[in-house]
């Protein structure tokens, strides 16, 4: 078996521009969510998280960014630059690039955009990122709704296992856009208050903006101190409904089982669940059923949506990076917004920050189109 690791990483969110400072902000109980009276043409109370313009400018400038890039391109370039710099990975034929996003430069389609509509093409997004770094390989672009960021790690793992690449750079990002906000609003899924995953009082999701990037590699000389082994993965469809979560949690249940099988672990070997937990009525309920069926109900669990909102394509990777820090620093992060259990099956929701020795966590994500992904991560040497 090829030993594939999640190595150097970066994230830029409302709470900071690197993984450690974002983790520190969470440990201090800070949230990236803010309440607003509207966004662009949406005139209604909203709650979301967004990267500060000055922070992004600063990081993009530090990455030697040229003018003429969209906001999302700047986010991805700034984030990848940090990973490339710190890891020292060579940008040659053995290094692949995966770009994961749900909507890419969707804001370029708007009439008011300063960019041509063609910039909304995901292929164009890929070219903008690749040309900045001079990456010789054609980027692999993945657009699989809200599992994109996590699934990108699985795709990277497979490409390394089958010898296509030795290293894969992954970047995942999505914008806060009128397009997506209005869509979730039409779905009556938005909460104007900070979201409350798994809580009896939950009223819906908040959206968020973030980018998260990482180096996935088999090369021990490129392992960071806080690397994690990608021990097992599964990704299964619900085959039930294109927007509604499965009532039985079938796809997530199967994904978790496949991930645990490949990692060769049982529920007792897992000390943390970094769950999807969007705080919609049906998603959280579905997850509780899938975790119960997988024998994971007792495992401490958090959703980080109460800090960042739902960062769409970036969510899976961003949340993975935070969970990896939990294991390395031996600290738990509570599930923000949770007061009392509001799902039908028991869950061990983390309500207080604390110290804990953890060896493995499982990260899950679910999205429109009935997609689900689960990955077991292992702290090396644990």
């Amino acid at each position: 078996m090829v030993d594939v690791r999640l190595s150097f990483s970066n994230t830029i969110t409302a709470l900071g521009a690197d993984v450690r400072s974002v983790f520190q902000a969470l440990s201090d109980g800070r949230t990236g969510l803010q309440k607003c009276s509207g966004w662009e043409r949406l005139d209604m109370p909203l709650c979301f998280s967004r990267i500060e313009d000055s922070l992004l400018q600063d990081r993009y400038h530090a990455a030697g960014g040229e003018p003429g890039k969209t906001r999302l391109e700047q986010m991805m370039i700034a984030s990848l630059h940090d990973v490339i710099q710190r890891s020292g990975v060579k940008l040659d034929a053995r290094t692949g690039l995966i770009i994961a996003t749900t909507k890419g430069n969707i804001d370029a389609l708007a009439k008011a955009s300063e960019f041509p509509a063609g910039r909304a093409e995901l292929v164009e997004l890929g070219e903008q990122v690749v040309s900045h770094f001079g990456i010789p390989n054609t980027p692999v672009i993945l657009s699989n709704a809200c599992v994109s960021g996590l699934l990108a790690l699985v795709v990277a793992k497979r490409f390394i296992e089958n010898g296509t690449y030795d290293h894969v750079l992954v970047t995942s990002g999505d914008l806060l856009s009128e397009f997506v906000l209005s869509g979730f609003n039409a779905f009556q899924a938005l909460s104007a208050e900070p979201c409350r995953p798994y809580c009896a009082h939950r009223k819906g999701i908040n959206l968020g903006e973030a980018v998260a990037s990482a180096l996935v590699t088999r090369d021990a000389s490129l392992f960071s101190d806080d690397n994690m082994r990608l021990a097992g993965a599964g990704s299964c469809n619900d085959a039930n409904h294109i927007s509604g979560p499965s009532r039985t949690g079938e796809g997530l249940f199967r994904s978790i089982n496949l991930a645990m099988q490949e990692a060769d672990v049982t529920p007792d070997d897992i000390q943390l669940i970094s769950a999807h937990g969007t705080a919609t009525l049906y998603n959280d309920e579905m997850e509780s059923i899938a975790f119960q069926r997988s024998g994971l109900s007792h495992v401490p669990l958090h959703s980080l949506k109460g800090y960042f909102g739902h960062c769409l394509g970036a969510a899976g990777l961003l949340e993975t990076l935070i969970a990896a820090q939990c294991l390395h620093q031996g600290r738990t992060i509570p599930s923000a917004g949770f007061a009392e259990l509001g799902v039908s099956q028991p869950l061990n929701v983390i309500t207080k920050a604390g110290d804990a020795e953890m060896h493995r966590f499982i990260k899950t994500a679910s999205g429109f189109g009935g997609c689900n992904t689960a990955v077991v991560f292992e702290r090396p040497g644990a």
Partner: protein
Amino acid sequence: MSDLKQELKNKIISQLNLEDVAIEDFEDSTPLFGEGVGLDSIDALELIVMMDKDYGIRLTDPKEGRKVFESVDVMAAYIEEHRTK
């Protein structure tokens, strides 16, 4: 009232793209969801938009929506009572 019911049936069939449903098999009392006309949760959201756009009725609770959309009979009665346009 019967004009409104006819109007609703036409709208439901055309706006929700129910190509396999013929207007003559569509009774006023046929359940819109489940075994009846076979609408699903996305259709329910579209009907909520339609209620707002065409009749000036704002339904914010999806569960309330489900009751209102039980059948064309129930919908028409609700619209008659609450319409603002």
